[in-house]
């Protein structure tokens, strides 16, 4: 059933894109079929293969086959996804260096506990913290100073 929902979703999004394609701005000199032509062709082809696949699922009685999706949002995976999402959202506001160090430390300590069923010793904790701060700073400086790349500066100016 999961796969049919996925396919239906594809068809619906495709349908919406098909309908929207008639509203595109068109140049009066355009003799190429217009900006909407290609998306419309692709939507039609997509819907055809989606329907064939749905028929195939029903005929082969694969209806109850499991569909991988929800497990992404369960347990440790959910924790990772949420951490990463928060990191990406906060990055432009908090600044690159600060958010990266925070993300690294939090995720590393969390994963470490899972990987070895135990937290780090105090000594390890200090080591890991210092190393990661140094490495993140080095990456930051490498990108901003050497590569002339703008990484977001946040509240602290870094």
């Amino acid at each position: 059933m999961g796969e049919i929902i996925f396919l239906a979703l594809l068809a619906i999004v495709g349908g919406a894109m098909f309908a929207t394609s008639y509203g595109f701005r068109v140049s009066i000199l355009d003799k190429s079929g217009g900006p909407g032509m290609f998306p419309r062709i692709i939507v039609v082809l997509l819907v055809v293969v989606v329907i064939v696949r749905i028929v195939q699922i029903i005929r082969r009685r694969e209806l109850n086959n499991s569909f991988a999706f929800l497990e992404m949002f369960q347990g440790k995976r959910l924790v990772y996804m949420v951490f990463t999402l928060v990191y990406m959202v906060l990055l432009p506001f908090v600044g690159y260096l600060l958010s990266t160090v925070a993300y690294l430390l939090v995720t590393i300590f969390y994963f470490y506990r899972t990987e070895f069923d135990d937290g780090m010793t105090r000594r390890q904790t200090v080591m890991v913290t210092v190393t990661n701060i140094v490495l993140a700073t080095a990456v930051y400086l490498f990108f901003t100073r050497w590569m002339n790349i703008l990484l977001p500066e946040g509240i602290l100016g870094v």
Partner: protein
Amino acid sequence: MLVDVLQNVVSLQNFLLILIGVAVGNVFGAIPGLNAPIAVALALPITFTLETMPAISLLMGLYMGCVSGGLVSATLLRIPGTAASVATTFDGYPMAQQGRATEALSIGSFASLVGGLFSFLCLVTLAPVLSKMAVGFGPWEYFATASLALVLVCVMLRGRTLKAFIALFMGLLLRTVGISPVDGIAARYTFGSYNMESGFNLIVVIIGVFALPEIVSSIAKLKEHVKPLPVKPRLFYLPAWGSIRRNIGTMLRGSVLGTFIGILPGMGGGAASLISYAQAKRSSKHPERFGTGIEEGIYSCESANNATTGGALIPMLALGVPGDTVTAILMGALALQGLTPGPLLSLKNETLFRSIIYVALVANIFMFVYQIMTIRYVAKVTEMKKSYLFPWVTVFCVTGVISIKNNVFDLIYLMAFGIIGYVLDKNDYPISPFILAFVLGRVVEENLRRSVMNYGSFLESFSRFGIGSIFVTLAVVLPIVSIVNHVRRERTKDAA
């Protein structure tokens, strides 16, 4: 003539600059978001101060280094730095996860060398002839070749063809987002955001589809550790002779394909390696083992993507038509040296023209030597604790995504493509058509519309008999044949 060329090429300064270029390029190729165009552009100010040959040496070293550097991150981390190394993840990564990282990297390096050398030979002997091909290709031929490439990759995935087409059309549809090509004024599906006008960036999509799902699904296996197979510490690592001998055919096919595709502007290493991989799988005696970490997989795609470099240089040097983005910048760099690649360069200054080609050869060889000597160090990445590795990989992906455009906007859809990649991969929908759709989507659309513009309609374009119309016919017929075969097989299965 040859003496002059050698005098031009062989010098300590040139070789040192090639080596520096190769080493730096390797890092750029391995870090997602940093790529060959950025590396070459950053080196531009340095080349101002150099003589012509040293400048070319540095740039060629960077170019070759970047193209090969993608092998490392694709194999060890499942992060293809560019589209060209996407296919490398299919077998390189599983092999590394079985503790055979050294083997995977040495195979990749060797195949790269073969691809590079082959395209060099073509460059030396056939440049004038092959460059004619680039001139003979118009919009209709590009449309046909790109469409056929897309169809081939789907049809070759035997047993999953239907799902492959679904993934393909998904990719093509997502690729239409942004300002429409050809007219340049219609903003498609941008929801009023100017940042969406350039569409989804290919590199961001690749990082999202490959790197993120891999981390997400590995989190359940945090406790499983990769045990590297014991390898004797040596100065350098080569694949076993037997393995090379078995795969000579695979590498040659990949090299021919890569050179051919490299000549056609806009197709590039991504298309070459994916098609070469699919082709190797189809003609293999044991296609089911592809994707589990077998050597043919790496040989086929790495020979193809490196062969595109020579292919891309052919039209640039002979015609002044760059074969990819990097060669476009290389042309700019040469122009700064007062050289304009094109018909005049090969006619009036043949020594220089040949010298450039030989520098490319030296860069290829240096690249190979550099890689097989550093394998033992870089392979250690697989031994890192996963609790350190995953957060850092994520940070590098995020940093890379920002640095592609100096813009944080792309992070917004990075995660969405991670989810799409996970859903496709885990439910047995092939990823390669999806990625190839992103690589070639614009080529297909632009050239379809240009053909309609030039010849009046699709049918009129089709009626111009030639290689284009043959390819289009094939692109239509092949799926039909595949369906008929499939139905027939199902019938016999039911009957039995």
